């Protein structure tokens, strides 16, 4: 029996539910091709960071000017480049090249701070040929004066502004740290998000005890991180008029199956490929197919959401009851 792996995400028809998450893997054309050859249905490009662009452009301009017009003998120190290729230009060129290099949908990603920057860059991505845009909202409210509702309002305004600037679908990737995730998800969808990507894995600062300094490094996801996304996808399935994607913790076919069961339209992977190589894509897809056949699912559409909170036999598990159950059933090694 052949199973139907195709799915829809952000209104895009995908050949299967496995999407490559935004990560440096998608930043090279040869890797992008290998991922497609392995069967990936779509790829999210690494985020274009607005702060990075602002910082780099200013830094390059400052470096070009540094020390100039000070000494009669050395009025400048560098030749004037014909093309600085500043701003999002390099990224946009990559979107174009990626579109030409592969046939799967390419989702551009943006991580920014200012309304002007987000909307402008999103439009430029659309113009460059991106099939959709993923808006990565990463905001740390360091100011104690900033309230949760302030943060929510800011997010919603941004989503609305970006949505207005583009005609391609818009996915919004957020973290789980909202007081009422369900309500926030609903409002994000109302503000214009065609899909929600759950969840953003924030890079957390670390402390270097030797250098007595801070350091930051990306830690690969682990399978247990899937659980948080599973819960929220399960809760939101059927409640929010938006596509849903799981973006953390899928490391094998079972992980992807779980994501689909609770209601995700797609599952995204990145860490699994870093850990096990490009072959992982095909392996997960084959595993999913094998599992579906074994479980006699005909299609992804059929299984998708079949274990959402609405549909599962124990809805309390996705609410507080799940927590209580875990506690009472826990027996540590000391007992």
């Amino acid at each position: 029996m052949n199973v139907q792996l195709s799915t829809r995400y952000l209104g895009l028809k995908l050949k299967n539910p496995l999407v490559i998450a935004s990560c440096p893997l998608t930043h090279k054309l040869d890797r992008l091709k290998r991922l497609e050859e392995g069967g990936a249905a779509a790829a999210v490009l690494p985020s274009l960071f607005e702060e990075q662009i602002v910082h780099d452009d200013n830094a390059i301009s400052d470096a070009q000017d540094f020390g100039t017009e000070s000494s009669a003998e050395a009025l400048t120190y560098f030749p004037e480049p014909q093309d600085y290729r500043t701003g999002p230009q390099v990224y946009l060129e990559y979107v174009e090249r990626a579109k030409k290099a592969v046939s799967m949908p390419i989702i551009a990603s943006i991580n920014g701070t200012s309304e002007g920057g987000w909307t402008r860059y999103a439009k430029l991505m659309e113009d460059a040929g991106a099939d959709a845009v993923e808006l990565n909202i990463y905001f740390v409210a360091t100011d104690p004066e900033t309230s949760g509702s302030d943060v929510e309002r800011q997010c919603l305004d941004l989503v609305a502004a970006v949505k207005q600037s583009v005609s391609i679908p818009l996915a919004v990737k957020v973290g789980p740290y909202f007081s009422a995730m369900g309500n926030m998800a609903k409002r994000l969808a109302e503000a214009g998000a065609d899909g929600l990507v759950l969840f953003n894995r924030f890079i957390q600062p670390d402390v270097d005890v030797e250098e007595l300094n801070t350091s930051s490094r990306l830690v690969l996801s682990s399978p247990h991180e899937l659980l948080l996304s599973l819960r929220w996808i399960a809760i939101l399935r059927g409640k929010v008029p938006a596509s849903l994607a799981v973006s953390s913790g899928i490391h094998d076919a079972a992980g992807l199956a779980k994501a689909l069961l609770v209601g995700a339209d797609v599952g995204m992977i990145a860490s699994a490929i870093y850990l096990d190589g490009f072959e992982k894509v095909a392996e997960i897809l084959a595993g999913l197919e094998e599992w579906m056949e074994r479980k006699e699912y005909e299609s992804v559409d059929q299984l998708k959401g079949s274990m959402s909170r609405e549909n599962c036999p124990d809805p309390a598990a996705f609410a507080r009851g799940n927590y209580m159950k875990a506690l009472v059933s826990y027996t540590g090694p000391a007992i």
Partner: protein
Amino acid sequence: MERRRFVTVDGNEATANVAHMCNEVMAIYPITPSSGLGEMPDAWAAAGRKNIFGVVPHVAEMQSEAGAAGAVHGSLQGGAVTTTFTASQGLLLMIPNMFKIAGELSPAVFHVTARTVATHALSIFADHSDVMTCRTTGWGMLASGSVQEAQDLALISHAATLESRVPMIHFYDGFRTSHEVNKIEQVTEDDARQMIDMDLVAAHRRRAMNPRNPVLRGTAQNPDVFFQAREACNPYYEAAAGIVQKAMDKFAALTGRQYRLFDYVGDEDADRVVISMSSSIGVVEDTVKKLNAQGEKVGMIKVRLFRPFDTGALIAALPKTVRSIAVMDRTKEPGASGDPLYLDVVAAVTEQWGKINHGAPTPQIIGGRYGLGSKEFTPAMVNAVFRELAEDQPRLRFTLGINDDVSNLSLDYDESFTTEGDGVTRAVFYGLGSDGTVGANKNSVKIVGENTPLHAQGYFVYDSRKAGALTTSHLRFSPRPINSSYLVSCANFVACHQAHFPERLDMLSIAEPGATFLLNSSYGPDEVWDHLPVEMQREIIEKKLKFYVVNAYRVARDAKMGVRINTIMQTCFFKLSNILPEEEAIARIKDAIKKTYGKRGETVLQRNYAAGDGALGALHEVKVPSEASSKLHRLSPVPEAAPEFVKDVLGTIISNRGDELPVRAFEADGTFPTATTQYEKRSVALDIPIWDSEVCIQCGRCSLVCPHAAIRMKVIDPAKLDGAPEGFKTVESKGADYSGMKFRLQVFPDDCTGCGVCADVCPGKNKKVAGRKAINMENKLDHLEHEQANLDFFLELPDVDRTTVKIGTVKGSQLLRPLFEFSGACAGCGETPYVKLISQFFGDRMMVANATGCSSIYGGNLPCTPYAMNEHGHGPTWSNSLFEDCAEFGMGFRLAVDQQIDYAKMLLGKLSSELGDELIGAIVNNKQETEEEIARQRANVAELKNRLPKSKDPHAKNLLASADYLVRRSIWSFGGDGWAYDIGFGGLDHVFASGRDVNILVMDTEVYSNTGGQASKATPRGAVAKFAAAGKPSKKKDLGMMAMSYGNVFVGQIAMGANPVHAIKTILAAESFRGASLILAFSHCIGWGIDMTTGMNYQKEAVACGYWPLFTFDPRNEDRPFSLDSKQPKGDFKEFALKAHRFGMLARSKPDESERLLQLGQGDIDERWHYYQQLAAVEHGAGEASEEAAAASGNGGGNGEGKAKAEKEATK
């Protein structure tokens, strides 16, 4: 036909544009002020701009001007239309080839920015000593007097040389014309095509060397034929002037601008005429016109074609009525009967006057000298010349613009005489290099020049110091063409872009009554008055100046522009000057911003726009009180306690009044005292390092890396601390060496440049606040007074006894007093810490030969110089010869010193009976390898010098004169990679081969830093530099390996920031080696595009990734001389490289090429490391044969062979 447009460009750009259009090959080499002439075609070629032949010219950087001339010669023989650009010594290096090129009648043009040839001193500024040195080469010489002429005569010279076959020097005054921005009508490619006759180009190609039609050139000829053959060229020279005039006429028909070989301007019946050349002609012309308007019968001749000198044309151009002529030369030919132009005019008049002007009395001719080294030349001076010509017996020889109280040659002049017309905006702007003032003013000149009918001129004066460099911009806007090639001295707009300048500078003496004064200050319109020095208040009141203040710092900060206040001040200038309607001015400024920054992206564009938008809101008029009431006074340039010479001469120069100094103020041979930077307190830092004594681990790294010797340490006898100022902290000295002593780290608050390198390298971390260290950069003003008092006391404390110091450690080295301090090098300079360290070790017995470049500028540019003296008055003695001969110059020191040692020893022998064997033995047998031995030798030589005057033996007097040589001298050649890798490599190589004890420090910045970042052979693969705009394609030369190949040369490659102890030990080992020593010192530079604060850590990363491996090759270690001293490379070269703009800009502009070159760069690193590893394992000197070979190769020429070998044994 293409339409000609008006552009506002400088003389170099005007000329380079023509050169690019008309040439196929350019062989170039950077030298100020011509560097831009080569850089522009190089950049245009990189961008694919074609010449009028339809191809992109080939631009090739050579290793020296001599090399460039050779390549030009070859290219001409190869049949390409070829040019080069140069100045000064560079032109002199081309002379041998110039004789050949002219001798072979090859058409070519050299565009020369005429610059002073170094004599008693180097000068980068204008006079004709360089071009006049070429008079005998057989080249034609065309002189341009303005930016417009520089373009026009460039094209005329290219056209004329092709027809005449006489090669042409087209020259104009360095800086004055090369860097003056002026509005000109630009010639088009169509114009160039009209002027350049392709049939003549084809003829040039036909004459080229071609195996299908073989010829022989460059023969050697014997006395029988050489002379006749040399005379064969005469017809070409006879025809050349006419051909030049023909080209001028053709050009006039095209453009309407008519030039003549000698252009006469003035009264038709003039009785007095001044003859001059180049940028002075505009000044003379303005004066003539003014005097004519006053009814005076005066005139002038503009000399365009100086060679071949058409005597008939000159006489024909002169009015018959002329009775006296003054010929103005911008050069000095000491000992000649007259300067060159004068002599030519005398010969012409003597020979031709009677023939052409039958019966008219022959005029009297006098000769004047002006403008050497860009000395100002003004209408007031020209007026004085005409006054002199009116005398019955005018002075036959005179000088202008100086006060010559030695030879009494100078003419007095009435400074109030001016030709400046009405309706002219004359504006002067005082800024800092870093604040963008010059760039904004260049834009302002362009805005006015290209958007209004007004004529516009900009000229910019720079500081000789690079940290905290003052810039002065002189702008004129006029309804009439601007000929005034001299500084604005009567300004109707003065702007001070930095609030602290009024403390030290008198900037309002040039303001005319009623002028506008704009000050950037963080004080508002109600507060600023009380913060001005009283002298400035008085000038504002007396001259009734309109006074405005703007807080540009705040606007810049809000716009995220950092310290760049350029756009803000520019906007205020347009608002206040009313040159353009406000709205239009703002629109044009935005256009200019877009033109300048548009390519850099929206972010950069927007912040500049924001700066401009915020400017007018922050601009306020200040209500000027009727009385000057400030308690502040302008600071004197040097302290009262400074020596007389420092106060009288250097202080005057510091106050920008150097022009007032008379001839007698200077030593005739160019000698200056050292140790003078200590008197000039520039106080340029915003933040200074503040010591946290509790956290300090007393490692000495801050002091070691300080580029300006502005943070130092002492161990102090506690008994000496009586009377210390309050808060003068000391702590117990750590370690056993100075147990019981106190330790203090002291900042020199007015000498620090605020670079922050000390704080960056400080390893002492505050346990309570991890972000703070033992050194923290803090606001200077919060600490200034306190630290000044501390410093005064610190300086009184005695230095440590050198003989007790473990100098091979960082801490030990830093207890030694630096004898190189407070130079004008860039903040965070990577070179000066090495120079300072060497001065700490050997400064009191050191002779320095310094190659021209950054190190000669920060080492020897007036007013104040950084080589210093210890408490005994001993210190480095320093001299700069040339760019190319630094190694040889140092070797000359060695030859003289060794000879004098031999001589003194011989005399000691002759005086042995009188002096006694004990003293003589102590002197002769002292190896002088340790501080103790050196100290003992000093004492013994002092004793010897005490005894000698008492001797009646005639040898005693001679020995007294040479006795100082008996204290071992440390001979050093200092220079950069441009010298060592390129122009000076031949000499360096020869010094290696000589085996002589010369220590060579190459401060490798991997680029020509001083001339603005041109690629050298030290530039790494993949880095962008000028002349390598597309990334340097080839790998860096391994100079160390080349030196090692001799076997008898000590070689050390060091990076202070990576391994300071290695640097220290290598320097000590190099100096102790009694043969040639080469130290390659990794020296970060602003030409790299890195954060200079972190320069030392950048060095660390360079070593860690294998980019700059540390090693030593010590011939004394005969078995294994090579030691690889850094760790196995770790990490990725690319990651390291992309932190610097020099690599990063290519990664952006040409990512694929960058990737390719960086991969090759990684390969270079891997391969070199692999090779060095193998080398480190090689055992040397196994057999007798190889020893003999080493001796033979190492000591060729019999120079010091035995000595080197004996000393090598001795030092084992």
